[in-house]
């Protein structure tokens, strides 16, 4: 994203008959060019503002925001995979059952077979990868539409959940396992009113960001590309650093960064890199945009499709682990309908249902929109039928607003 914006500026500068643009011009240009990408964020902020007012500020409290992030975590993790799946023109309906099944397997291993956290996780992930491989195989090599393959998965995996749990909840999990879903980074100095370790992590993030940004600038200069004027570059770096500080600060001032959120952040970073910077990711977009052209460009479509579903299997498994850890139990209905939330998050975040377009960052915003609606309305203790109706309408309006003002195709 950042990259695109500067290239546009660079090219504009070139076409503008060699005259170097003023800072004001650059700012206005960037804003105009990118305003559109930010409309869903704007919609999110409006929703947040609304809930903050009607809940007398409870909504925006660091405690509630921490909760909100945790409440969205499992869905957001699954949604990251869903973006790749959908960009390639597929869909995954099996997520909810997958989450239920991998959770049930983990609980079974831990509670019945008395395994430790590490073995449990390792085996569960192994099984999740195999299930992903299985689905991917049918999509990629069996040429069965993903809709059908994953609908079969939705059914079969739920059968597996019922077989394993026998309708019982399986509980409780080990403390270390539980921590994945419920735990916070421990403080070094428990006397502090905020989490010192979390603050430290925040500082590390900021440093990483700054190093990345500086490297990028250096490299662009080396290539002889236009870069932002120093003053703007610094402003940008300060701005983003403050944003990171703010988000981490919110969590640090409550109980610290939850492990689940750290995991989610790692997944976001990794999957953004996969989507935007890796050849694999680029191939996914190409396949979703024009399968035939992708094939003629030398892309092995079957392999990419297989890979997508293996990754999706991995993420569904991680989501299953986080979900089970958070509930501290595996239940027969665990995960039901999560696919719908994951798909909705992706679509709200701009992923096309017809493939070819979508971003990881967008789906996170989407997951936050969905999660905020649930969270905010339950804070308001609104009547359920009203909750359903209002949630539906706000969803519609938020996406409409985004489309109207961002003109995404």
């Amino acid at each position, binding site marked *: 994203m950042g990259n695109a914006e500067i290239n546009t500026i660079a090219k504009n500068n070139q076409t503008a008959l060699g005259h170097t643009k003023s800072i004001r011009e650059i700012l206005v240009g960037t804003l105009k060019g990118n305003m559109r990408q930010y409309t869903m964020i704007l919609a999110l902020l409006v929703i947040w503002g609304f809930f903050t007012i009607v809940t007398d500020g409870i909504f925006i409290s660091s405690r*509630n925001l921490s909760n909100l992030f945790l409440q969205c975590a499992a869905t957001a993790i699954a949604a990251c995979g869903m973006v790749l799946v959908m960009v390639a023109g597929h869909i995954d309906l099996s997520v909810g059952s997958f989450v239920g099944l991998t959770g049930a397997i983990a609980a079974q291993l831990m509670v019945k077979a008395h395994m430790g956290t590490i073995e449990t996780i390792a085996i569960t992930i192994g099984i999740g990868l195999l299930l992903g491989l299985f689905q991917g195989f049918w999509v990629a090599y069996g040429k069965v539409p993903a809709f059908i393959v994953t609908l079969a998965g939705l059914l079969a995996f739920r059968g597996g959940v019922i077989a394993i749990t026998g309708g019982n909840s399986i509980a409780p999990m080990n403390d270390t396992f539980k921590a994945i879903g419920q735990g916070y980074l421990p403080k070094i100095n428990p006397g502090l009113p905020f989490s010192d370790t979390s603050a430290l992590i925040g500082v590390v993030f900021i440093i990483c960001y700054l190093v990345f940004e500086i490297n990028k600038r250096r490299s662009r200069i080396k290539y002889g590309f236009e870069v932002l004027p120093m003053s703007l570059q610094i402003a940008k770096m300060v701005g983003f650093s403050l944003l990171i500080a703010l988000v981490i600060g919110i969590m640090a001032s409550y109980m610290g960064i939850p492990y689940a959120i750290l995991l989610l952040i790692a997944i976001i970073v990794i999957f953004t890199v996969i989507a935007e910077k890796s050849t694999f990711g680029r191939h996914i977009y190409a396949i979703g945009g024009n399968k035939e052209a992708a094939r003629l460009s030398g892309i092995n479509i079957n392999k990419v499709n297989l890979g997508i579903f293996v990754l999706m299997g991995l993420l569904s498994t991680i989501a299953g682990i986080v979900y089970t850890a958070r509930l501290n139990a595996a*239940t027969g209905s665990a995960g039901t309908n999560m696919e719908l939330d994951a798909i909705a998050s992706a679509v709200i975040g701009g992923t096309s249902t017809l493939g070819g377009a979508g971003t990881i960052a967008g789906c996170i915003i989407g997951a936050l929109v969905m999660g905020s609606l649930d969270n905010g309305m*339950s804070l308001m*203790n609104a009547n*359920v039928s009203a909750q359903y109706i209002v949630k539906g309408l706000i969803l519609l309006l938020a996406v409409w607003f985004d489309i109207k003002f961002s003109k995404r195709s």
Partner: protein
Amino acid sequence: GCGASNSASNGSASGNSAASSADKKIKIGLSLPTQQEERWVRDKATMEEAAKKAGVDIAVQVANMDAAKQDSQVENLISQGIDILILAPHDAKAAASTVDKAHKAGIKVIAYDRLITGTDIDVYMSFDNVKVGELQGKWLTEHLDKGNIVWLAGAPTDNNATLFKQGAAKYLQPKIDSGDYKVVMEQPVVDWKPDNALKLMENALTANNNNIQGVLAPNDGTAGGCIQALAAQGLAGKVPITGQDSELSAAKRIIEGTQGMTVFKDTRKLGEAAVEAAIKMVKGEDPGANDKVNNEKMDVPSILLAAEAVDKDNIDKILIDSGYLKKEDVYGK
């Protein structure tokens, strides 16, 4: 008239009942609402066991909490030539037309666990759902005098949830009216899902800055979710919370002290009694009703069993001594 039963027999059980109806073995049809909750898994197991002992066939269908699906499945049971139907309805009103179909085919119907309203029922046997709610409400009022409570109900789309809530209200409403209780959150738990209960509880705690003194959770699954939220605030065990179904994990939590109570519905007894009554009815004998319950159409002859509230004090006696749960499962790590 129903067609001949032709399912494979499970060994030549020398049950007295089977012998009496000449060459034809009795076939019971059983339709259950779900298998995603422990209690219904047990109901199924008990009845299959009882049928095996009695030497009769039993065909079981599970409707996945879908009234239309249950209706179809009962049709399929009728097609298989069952002699009697034990129907645990997903939806008490919607099941009426299902019952009519069975009656049209000359098959008698036992309403199991949940009363079917608005049509003729041959026998009803249950732990009264309203009663279950009463036990929950009663327990909470006994363990909490005054304070802020969270009142969760079951799925908003589930008729039974309404019945549980009605029962609980008998005890809670007076306290609320008198101002002793302040309901700070009153929400149904969509789909009975524990993770939905968890989110609701987290939000209730946040909105009230942890100032919550009691929780009415409609069943053990949702109680489990609430307890995770309480635990995160270090409140697990400090806030009385209800449940129902006597799930193993709930029993563990009761021992641990994080869950206050659950409700024990000894489905084994109910299941055995149902199979017994079914066989009697096929043979034209009296099933032995001990009560009558009105279902808006008639006074249905009923066999009612008592549900019991279980807490730390009586858990060993009620759940373990009765053999419902194993001691090593409940106390073992």
